[in-house]
């Protein structure tokens, strides 16, 4: 876990709102960057570093929702907190389905905003650590031989050594030896741990 300070990106076309929200978040101790338009944000650097986005739904040019889908296409995992002038339920549903962490109505209460931001950052941190773990698992997995991967798949499916041996047409002992090799290469101690690492191998939904 690297100690990188997360950056809060604020995108709002209204100068005074943008200024006020960034002041509030700065006062709460966050690093803040603000942008007047979606385009300005997309051109900015270090969008890959941890942080979150506080985004106004209604803006001239690309709207908040359009920005959200553009980021998704680019595989950017920054969590998004939407700010809206008025509670528009269909819009908020769309935003949440598209992966928004929160949907806040202006004028937003301090606690609401701060907890939403904290929540988003936590989620992202968790997401990041998960990503790191999965990366590690994938690296371990890469060291497995073809035969070992096949055996691991059977193990994770919950088959007994005897069944695996029968299916693969090899000796139960050979299965046992490979299985120990898999456990060691995947750096797990128990079957439960192995099953969990296997889930990390599935393609993440970003």
């Amino acid at each position, binding site marked *: 876990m690297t100690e990188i300070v997360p950056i809060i990106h604020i995108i709002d076309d209204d100068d*005074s*709102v943008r200024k006020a929200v960034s002041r509030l978040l700065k006062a709460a101790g966050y690093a803040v960057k603000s942008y007047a338009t979606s385009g300005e944000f997309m051109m900015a650097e270090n969008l890959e570093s941890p942080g979150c986005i506080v985004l106004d739904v*209604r803006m001239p040019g690309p709207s908040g929702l359009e920005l959200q889908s553009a980021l998704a296409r680019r595989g950017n995992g920054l969590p998004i907190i939407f700010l809206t002038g008025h509670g528009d339920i269909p819009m908020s549903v769309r935003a949440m389905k598209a992966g928004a962490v929160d949907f806040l109505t202006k*004028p937003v209460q301090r606690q609401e905003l701060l907890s939403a931001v904290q929540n988003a950052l936590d989620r992202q941190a968790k997401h990041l650590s998960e990503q790191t773990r999965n990366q590690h698992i994938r690296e371990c997995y890469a060291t497995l031989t073809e035969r070992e991967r096949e055996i691991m798949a059977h193990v994770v499916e919950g088959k007994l050594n005897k069944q695996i041996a029968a299916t693969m047409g090899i000796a139960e002992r050979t299965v046992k030896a490979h299985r120990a090799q898999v456990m060691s290469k995947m750096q797990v101690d128990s079957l439960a741990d192995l099953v969990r690492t296997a889930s990390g191998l599935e393609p993440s939904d970003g």
Partner: protein
Amino acid sequence: MLLITHTRQWWKFYIGLCLGATAAYYEDGQISAPIALFAAQFHFAAVVIGVLGIRRFVADIPFGTVGTMLVFVASAGLLVPLATSAPIELTRWAMGADDVVASTLRSFLCVSLGVVLASPAFTTLLVSGADWIRSGSWQSKLEAALLAISLVVVGQVVFSSPAGTGTLPALIYAPIPILLWAALRFEVAGASWSLLAIAYQSTWNAINDRGPFVSGSTDDYVLQMQLFLLAVSLPVLFMAAGVHERRRAFSLLVGEIEERRRMEERFRLVVESTPNAMLMVDQTGEIVLSNKQTERLFGFRQQELLGRAVEELLPERFRQDHVIYRQAFFADPKTRSIGLGTELFARRADGSEFPVEIGLTPIDTGNGAMVLAAIVDISERKRAEEAQQELVHASRLAMLSEFTATIAHEINQPLGAILSNADAAEMLLESSAPPLDEVRQILADIRDDDLRASNVIRKLRGLLRRGEFEREPIDINSVVADVMVILRAEAQRRGVELRSELAPDLPELLGDKIHLQQVLLNLIVNGMEAMVETTGPKKISIATYQNDGQIQVSVSDTGPGVSPERLPRLFDRFFSTKKEGMGMGLAISRSLVEEHGGRIWAESPPSEGATFRFNLPLDCGQAGSRDAAAIDSQEQNP
């Protein structure tokens, strides 16, 4: 005769006179023909002098007034005989005649009498004789006949008595009552003809040696007779002229009175037949004339109104001021209207009040300055105006309700900023070393945002308010700016770019800010709705400029435009190109623009979108335009 004949015809008389005089003197045998002709020149010259004198001074022929008669007697009775006899007598004197004085007197009196008696007689006969015979009443003719008979009888009695029989001299005055009768009843014509008759009778009888004058020498009694006739003729003629003058003056006066009465009657008829209530009021405020409509309008009977103070027709609270207004009006009397643009009420007999407009016209009568007031009950118009205002307001509310969401957004933005700023400031102050400069900056921003929010609310409240037409100086650019504040968010939501090109330094105009905002809102929202299906860039441009004493505002969109056959009907009620449109927006916009004395129209060049324009005259505060608008709005009300 020359008196009544045009100068161009005079040569005929000249020739006649020359022939006649020559013949007469020749027959007389005293002088030769050439001298007679020579004398005739003097006669004619004398007559011309006399006639010209009369014609010069007397416009009113024949002898209608004492003045004319005086001029006539002076010229015809003195100048003419003098001019006639003087040259002849002087010639005779030069030739050695010894009776020049007596002869002069004789011929002078002879000519004088002849001219004075004959001229009026023949002139009046020629001028009005035919008329009298044709159209005089039979009573008048009977009286004339009686007069003539009396004259003949009395004349015969007085003048045909045997000569020198010691006839009572008093008897010669007997014709005088008859002459007075003639003068009184038949004026100059009667008097002169009667005098002529008396003269003829006395002369004829004297020639035949009869009558009261015949005694002593011929010269003596001729002189006597001539003096008698002159002494009688002159007063009688003057009296006749005087009677005529009086009668004429009297009939003129009667005619004038009659004419006046007719005029007054006509005036009354006009006042009575106007559809408005009318009152004539004198300087003291007393009602001197009223019509039926006034009775109906106020519930007073005409007799009750006359003599009453006009202030009694006003509610108590207006009375004192009205006295001052009335005095001011009479100090500078000119036609004007009161009640325009102000609330003026009148009061009925039962005490109820109603709104009025009053037109005042000063009238200068024989009895001093008066004012004629036409009073119009404008209750109906007021009601119509109120209904129109209601409609205008309702349509404004309906339009605003369509974008409450975006308006709420406009208010929420600054409110959100305020809240976040306040929170930030609070958190900063909780820190160990609060950055006071930043807190100050935050407070300034909070103030700005608060003003921004209240500005939106103020503009919105103006639009929501149900107000009467108010006239105040307006900067049209600020009206546009206000509308853009309200519509900014809505335009953004619809993806429409709102632009404005405002001419700087536009003069202020008199008008109703809210109503003009409503017109602009209508036009801009219409433009945005027209572009719903537009795929290209959606733009609305609002421009203001000054043009020929007017301010013009245009709203252009980049939508599909309006087809030419729809253009003329665009501002009609219930005409809409939109599926869910009521067709009221543009109709109301039109009536609001017309309320300002302006005009609204649309242009739609092919493939260029639509442009709506309206003109606002800079002097639209004038009453006329407002009246027109008011009438228009009445017509438009269903």
